[in-house]
């Protein structure tokens, strides 16, 4: 009798085990298929610019003229690559100090106020739709720049300020997690040696968490790199490398979103837009690798 019961239980467990295994495996398989098919889709569309439309890869990457409807059409993506890099890196330069200071405040200086008020407010920023950021940028930042600086106000600086606000929550959240995960012994040791709070933060906390903080910054840059709508509204979108921060410029994403709907699938112009998407995807991969590398260093 008892033996039968045991056998029954064992059978049940084996069935449960298998149901669980099969279910997780199916989920993973679906995920892998989705990811690989997306990569394949973008890559095959993007590559057809160079394979079937016979556009030179090097002239695509280094060309300064983007005249897809011209005679003959010219596809030089360098202005977009330049625009994407300059806006997202500038955005990180603005956002990183703010975000790291905010997370230091929340973890080291005043956890009570910080966690209760500051963190929810910063996280709220992540939930605002990007078109709202774009419109705020267009209504407040652009007219301000136009009045104060020479130029029309639209440009890389307006774009990077809008992006900086958008990536603030990303960097803050990751930095806060990193700082909170710091073993207490390190700080206590520092205080025991007679160091002040500032000395502890500057000499102990920041250097030990630096790789994790950098992870947050890189993730912020990659988010800024992929953002389209808000930037498109305030950057001006002229396909040229600008000579000042207040002159109309363009990013990879804004070039894609402006023209994708207007071009027909299979035309060279449409293929070239997919190639821009391929560059974006390749850059995202590189950012992910950088993050991985930083994480590995953080563990050592």
């Amino acid at each position, binding site marked *: 009798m008892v033996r039968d019961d045991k056998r029954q239980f064992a059978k049940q467990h084996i069935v449960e085990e298998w149901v669980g295994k099969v279910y997780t495996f199916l989920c993973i398989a679906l995920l892998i298929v989705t990811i690989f098919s997306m990569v394949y889709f973008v890559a095959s569309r993007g590559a057809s610019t160079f394979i079937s439309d016979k556009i030179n890869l090097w002239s695509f990457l280094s060309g300064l003229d983007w005249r897809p409807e011209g005679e003959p059409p010219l596809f030089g993506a360098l202005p977009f690559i330049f625009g994407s890099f300059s806006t997202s890196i500038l955005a990180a330069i603005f956002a990183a100090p703010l975000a790291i200071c905010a997370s230091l405040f929340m973890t080291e200086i005043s956890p009570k106020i910080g966690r209760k008020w500051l963190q929810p407010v910063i996280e709220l920023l992540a939930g605002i739709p990007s078109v709202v950021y774009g419109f705020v940028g267009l209504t407040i930042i652009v007219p301000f720049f136009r009045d104060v600086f020479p130029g029309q*106000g639209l440009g890389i600086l307006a774009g990077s300020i809008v992006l900086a606000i958008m990536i603030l929550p990303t960097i803050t959240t990751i930095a806060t997690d990193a700082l909170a995960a710091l073993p207490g012994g390190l700080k206590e040791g520092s205080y025991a040696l007679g160091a002040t709070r500032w000395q502890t933060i500057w000499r102990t906390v920041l250097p030990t968490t630096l790789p994790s903080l950098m992870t947050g910054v890189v993730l912020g840059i990659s988010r800024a790199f992929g953002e389209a709508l808000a930037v498109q509204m305030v950057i001006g979108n002229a396909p040229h490398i600008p000579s000042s921060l207040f002159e109309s410029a363009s990013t990879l994403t804004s070039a894609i979103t402006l023209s994708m709907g207007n071009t027909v699938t299979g035309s060279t112009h449409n293929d070239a837009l997919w190639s821009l998407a391929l560059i974006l995807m390749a850059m995202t991969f590189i950012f992910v690798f950088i993050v991985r590398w930083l994480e590995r260093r953080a563990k050592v």
Partner: protein
Amino acid sequence: MKKSMLLVMTLVLTVILAACGNNSNNNTNNGAAANTPEASASSTPEATPTPEALSGSVLATGSSALQPLVDQVAQKFMAKDEYKQISVQVQAGGSGTGLTQVSEGQSDIGNSDIFAEEKFKDADASKASELVDHIVGVVAMAAVVHPEVGVDNLTKQQLIDIFTGKITNWKDLGGKDQAIVIVNRPSSSGTRATFENYALGQKTEDLKGSIQEDASGTVKKLVSETPGAIGYLALSYLDNTVKTVKYEGVEPTVDNVTTGKYPVWAYEHMYTKGEPTPVVKAFLDYMVSDEVQNGDVTELGYIPATAMKIQRDAAGNVTNK
């Protein structure tokens, strides 16, 4: 050991997926080729008029300039008793998307601001000949400037000089001493194609320092706020915040467009692949009915196709009706 296994797995998956991708590509190609007889086969039973009400669904995609009109008309259409069984869906996405989707059979109607012949060029030219054009309205465009530039009429040559960067200050055109800021549409845009074809008569390049925006609301906002700005907008977007300039001395009014005095306008097309099915035809017939043409079309700032006293073909030749 485990890592190498993972690597092998990944490689195998990639190869399999690449193969899958190819297969699915072939499938869609076959599907598109096989679609035509299928579609006509399925429309045969519908073609025989049945006493019951029509039922089915209509998907219209494309031009965001035409979307508000189609959307509004679709709501009224579906509210009618005789068309209760028909559901009409309208999606924006741009003229290029609309034309691609209708030509590939993904949607029933492709909305476009420009003739299909202008989008499907070279190798794709045959795709345009498969599409049937249904003109549902006319949209006219006017050059608009910042209210303080001090110019209220521009000739064709002056506009060419502005948009090609030859003239860069309003004082050369009799206005204020103020640098000209061009607020343009992206080079692929149907609105820009219309403006270049019929106002400038030539293509222009994107000048350094010019601004490109695709949404009419953003264009209007930028022109009204940026000193020295010039752009172009559909008549339905015009208001006091921007100054409308005359073209060669002609005011952009509905009367001047319908009589052919004012040339900067374009048809709004709704393309179907081949002749429309009865359900789609019912909707398109409703679009060009007097009720819609004199109601919703004028109400939303378009010009009824029926009011035009002239007509224009894809090559731009204008003839009297």
